[in-house]
């Protein structure tokens, strides 16, 4: 056997380690049983209509799908999901890039600052949500009181209790926790940049701002696209902060697709309808990520 023959599948050895099957089987089994099977079951479930009175499920393929598309609450949830994703992503990206530029230095002490910046990443999001719930409390929360002290909000104002400010309040937790993700990735990108183009630009009299837009940004486009893709997918299925901070409220002011599905499920146990909203979330994620990957030619 020569080196080039190795790894080629043969019908005789599929049970030995020379064949790829034994290597791939455990992972495939896990993905089929806990990924593919429940997904198919969820899709099939959406084809049934739940009778609230008899608690029986009747085959009625279009019932849930027409229902959710005529449901103003679903459209609100979709709008909240998209707004949450776009706004939080923009803040995280811009802040992340600025902070990365600030911390990209070999001077003493910057290494410690960069290490500290990674700490928010490992806090359970549910705990982060609770942190901000505490700090945003209108009567004793430290952030709320600082904002109130500036006169922007009236005394005792509850940021998470008012529908106008609840979603921005939740986003604050999201932005705080995941801006460091962007910082970390941007720093890796910045450190990998070649030095020569910047030296040449400086000799030609380019300002640092010009160098940033003409050199840094274009050379970092791949890194930025990967970071946006990974964060964007997580933002589209936002749940944890919303569940612990506002539980989709007040009313439905912070309801996203995922939290709406959860509310239907826990609320009136209409599994088929909840599944339809959940599958819609999946479709949204697949659609946006595919379009994004096509436009920006990203490959993970």
């Amino acid at each position, binding site marked *: 056997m020569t080196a080039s023959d190795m790894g080629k599948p043969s019908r005789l050895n599929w049970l030995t380690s020379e064949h790829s099957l034994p290597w791939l089987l455990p992972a495939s089994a896990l993905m089929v049983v806990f990924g593919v099977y429940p997904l198919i079951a969820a899709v099939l479930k959406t084809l049934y209509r739940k009778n609230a009175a008899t608690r029986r499920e009747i085959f009625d393929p279009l019932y849930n799908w027409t229902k959710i598309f005529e449901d103003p609450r679903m459209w609100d949830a979709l709008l909240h999901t998209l707004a949450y994703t776009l706004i939080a992503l923009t803040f995280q990206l811009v802040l992340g890039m600025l902070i990365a530029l600030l911390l990209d*230095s070999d001077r003493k002490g910057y290494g410690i600052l960069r*290490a500290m910046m990674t700490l928010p990443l*490992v806090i359970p999001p549910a705990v982060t949500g609770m942190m901000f719930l505490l700090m945003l409390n209108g009567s004793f929360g430290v952030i709320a009181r600082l904002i109130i002290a500036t006169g922007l909000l009236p005394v005792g104002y509850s940021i998470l209790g008012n529908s106008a400010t609840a979603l921005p309040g939740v986003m604050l937790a999201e932005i705080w926790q995941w801006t460091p993700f962007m910082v970390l990735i941007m720093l890796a990108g910045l450190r990998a940049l070649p030095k020569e183009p910047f030296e040449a630009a400086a000799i030609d009299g380019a300002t640092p701002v010009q160098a940033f837009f003409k050199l840094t940004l274009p050379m970092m486009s791949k890194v930025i696209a990967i970071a946006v893709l990974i964060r964007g997918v997580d933002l589209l299925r936002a749940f944890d902060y919303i569940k612990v901070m506002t539980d989709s409220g007040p009313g439905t002011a912070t309801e996203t697709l995922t939290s709406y599905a959860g509310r239907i499920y826990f609320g009136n146990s209409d599994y088929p309808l909840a599944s339809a909203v959940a599958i819609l979330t999946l479709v949204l994620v697949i659609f946006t990520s595919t379009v994004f990957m096509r436009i920006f030619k990203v490959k*993970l």
Partner: protein
Amino acid sequence: MELSRPWQIARDALAAFVTAIFMFPIFWWALTSIKPISAVFDKDRIVWFDFIPTTINYAVTMLGQSRSQLAIDAGIGMGVAGTEAYDSRSSILDSAVVSIGATAVTMMVAIPAAYALSRMAFRGRNAFLNWVLGQRFMPPIAIIFPLVTTYKWLGMRDTDNYYLGWLGLMLIYALMNLPIAVLLLKSFFDDVPKDVDEAAMIDGATRWETFCKIVLPMAKGGVAAAAVLCFIFSWTEFLLSLFLTTDIRTVPVKIQTFVTSTGNEWGFITALGTAAVIPGFIFILLVQRHLVRGLTLGSLKE
């Protein structure tokens, strides 16, 4: 870029200030956990350091002591009802067992798959890679409802059998961790030069032997990093545990039960919350070097 001295000092100060802003919530959280209740709920001013520190919140959540007894001993003297709900020791056990178990399961299935993707040419390789990657994009909400039904049918819910409940969570966490683990491990295996194991195979070693004796030992730093990341992701997971379990309460799920209609138990919440972030803080410092690679599923290297 060279800066003049005043500008350099300004930059250092700004860098320190921005980092401090990001550290503030963690600091405030830990500070609140040692405050007496009166200092947490002071409506007239923000209490910074002028309070007498207390360990009562940790004694109740971490040691399972009776809150009313502690209050009487401390001379606060208000007899408050039940402490059982705030004893979080079993939650910490649940989280630890499930996270360690999930990490073990993930590594057992991910390591062979990553090896095959790194070293073997087989039909459908790209399709398999995309399948793994697609798993990372799947919102957990899309699979959780049927899983609850299936677990109920199999008698695997925590209300049927506590240990099977642990197993059930481990398996679904393993699925959630699988894409990161497989792709990250593949990138570490790719870093091991191929000539080494190809030479061994020409000398008659089987793939299994080269894997155990060459590739795995040479990539063990990467394997450790992947395991640490899997542990952190399992430790912080919330949605799946919330939907799937009732008796088992992992820490993130437990902590939000302290929010009650009669008021939030901020002392206990912050004490448990502070304890819950410590393992993550220790682990993240261990894998600093591989963090970017892990978070981008192996596609960016530092």
